[in-house]
């Protein structure tokens, strides 16, 4: 690998050198005026710089965030990460783990650990995704018989039989924990929901619904979390809460460049990771798309017959 890299790098260098040489020779042969305009253009481009072109592979970080390692360097281990990625791809060959986000509605079937040969199916809204590598997990929430139920699944759990996305969408927030304190109608989804199919090539829609919270007591201090998906938070606050919210604000945190840096995986590391898994993931996506198309065609036939 390194050999190839160095080779390509050398080639690149050579090409750069030749280009430079050409440009120089051109400039020296042209009259002075032309040179000046060239220099001006150079300056203009420098002042009005555009962002550097991004690697298209990097877009997969939204779809498969669990392939990126934990950003904490104390917990990094390149060999373990590599083995885990290979295992994750193996698991993805066995069952179709679809693209979904926090706010999507999923149906998960797992084999029942307490009854041999039987399965459990649970439908709910994904309220969080966390963890990385083989330990990635997500939580589904639904209201069953007026009782809020949450089930946490591990994404690569071998007892999971199918994961089906019933409605692919995002919400306004990254975590939907506030559904626990919201009115039950916002986290109630029928068990026999039909999957909604998005037309191909559309971006994942963002559901702008704003939930209404139940009166206090709450599980968390939602008013301090700057939530976009809650509409009636101000109704339940006292003057004391508003004052404390102001005191607790951390407006400097968005300027803390190193805090952001320590939370993410830099582009160079990501390029390596996505270069390793991109091709296989893309193949899987293509094959699942094909099967989905087949299913769409066959469904009305069965109804007719």
């Amino acid at each position, binding site marked *: 690998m390194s050999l190839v890299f160095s080779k390509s790098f050398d080639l690149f260098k050579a090409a750069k050198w030749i280009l430079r040489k050409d440009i120089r020779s051109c400039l020296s042969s042209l009259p002075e005026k032309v040179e000046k305009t060239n220099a001006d253009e150079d300056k203009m481009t420098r002042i009005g*710089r555009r962002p550097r072109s991004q690697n298209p592979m990097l877009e997969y970080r939204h779809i498969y965030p669990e392939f990126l390692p934990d950003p904490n360097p104390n917990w990094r281990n390149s060999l373990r990460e590599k083995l885990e990625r290979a295992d994750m791809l193996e698991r993805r060959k066995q069952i179709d783990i679809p693209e979904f986000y926090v706010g999507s509605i999923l149906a998960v079937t797992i084999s029942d650990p307490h009854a041999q040969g039987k399965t459990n199916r649970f439908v709910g809204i994904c309220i969080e995704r966390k963890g990385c590598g083989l330990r990635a997990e997500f939580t589904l929430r639904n209201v069953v018989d007026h009782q809020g139920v949450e089930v946490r699944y591990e994404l690569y759990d071998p007892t999971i039989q199918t994961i089906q996305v019933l409605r692919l969408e995002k919400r306004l927030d990254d975590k939907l924990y506030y559904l626990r304190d919201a009115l039950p109608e916002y986290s109630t989804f029928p068990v026999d929901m039909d999957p909604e199919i998005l037309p191909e090539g559309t971006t994942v829609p963002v559901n702008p619904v704003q939930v209404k919270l139940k009166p206090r007591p709450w599980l968390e201090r939602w008013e301090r979390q700057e939530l976009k998906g809650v509409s009636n938070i101000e109704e339940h606050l006292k003057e004391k809460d508003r004052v404390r919210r102001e005191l607790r604000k951390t407006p400097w945190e968005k300027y803390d460049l*190193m805090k952001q840096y320590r939370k993410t995986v830099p582009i160079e590391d990501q390029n390596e990771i996505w270069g390793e898994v991109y091709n296989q993931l893309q193949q899987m996506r293509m094959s699942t798309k094909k099967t989905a198309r087949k299913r769409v065609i066959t469904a009305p036939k069965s109804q007719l017959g």
Partner: protein
Amino acid sequence: MNQADVTKLVSKLRIKVPPKHRRLSCPEGPEGRLNKLRKTVTGLIKYERIELNYYRGDEARQYAERLISEAINHGDCHKPTMEMADFWLLEKELVHKLFKVLVPRFENSNSAYTRMLKAPKPAYGRYIDKAVLELRGNPYPSLQNKQTNNRQLLQNILLDAAKYDYRQAKYAEMAEKIEKSEESSSVKTTNIEHNN
């Protein structure tokens, strides 16, 4: 095991980043710490070389590197980057310096944008590590004494002399060899003439 934040893309720093930040004992808390570092980063961009305590310098170095790499990645038409520069540089003319002087300077560099060297501690002062933090490509004379290239250094003078002697000895040997071969050839020719 936490999931990496994927909303923002950052380029990798070329310096060693410790896993945790230093808190820089500060009564105003994290905000005060950031204010301290703002002053240092502003000073670094303004003077290009500053001497300060090691810990504060190391922290400020990371922030300065991040600021420059953001400026290089996004340019000055990117609003969040501009806000960031506005926050970190307390003197607003330095924002122009960042985008018009430092970005072209470091655009194609393959190394870190700053350099930090350990500075001598005062003999009878508090026992605190000092450091010199500087931007690369600054106009000041180098702090590192690169004596290996200095021809006037005693070792280099001695080495040069030794090389010169060695070369003279070799030349003398070669000259002797040539003389010998010439003599032998002349002897041979005379022998041949005698035979004839």
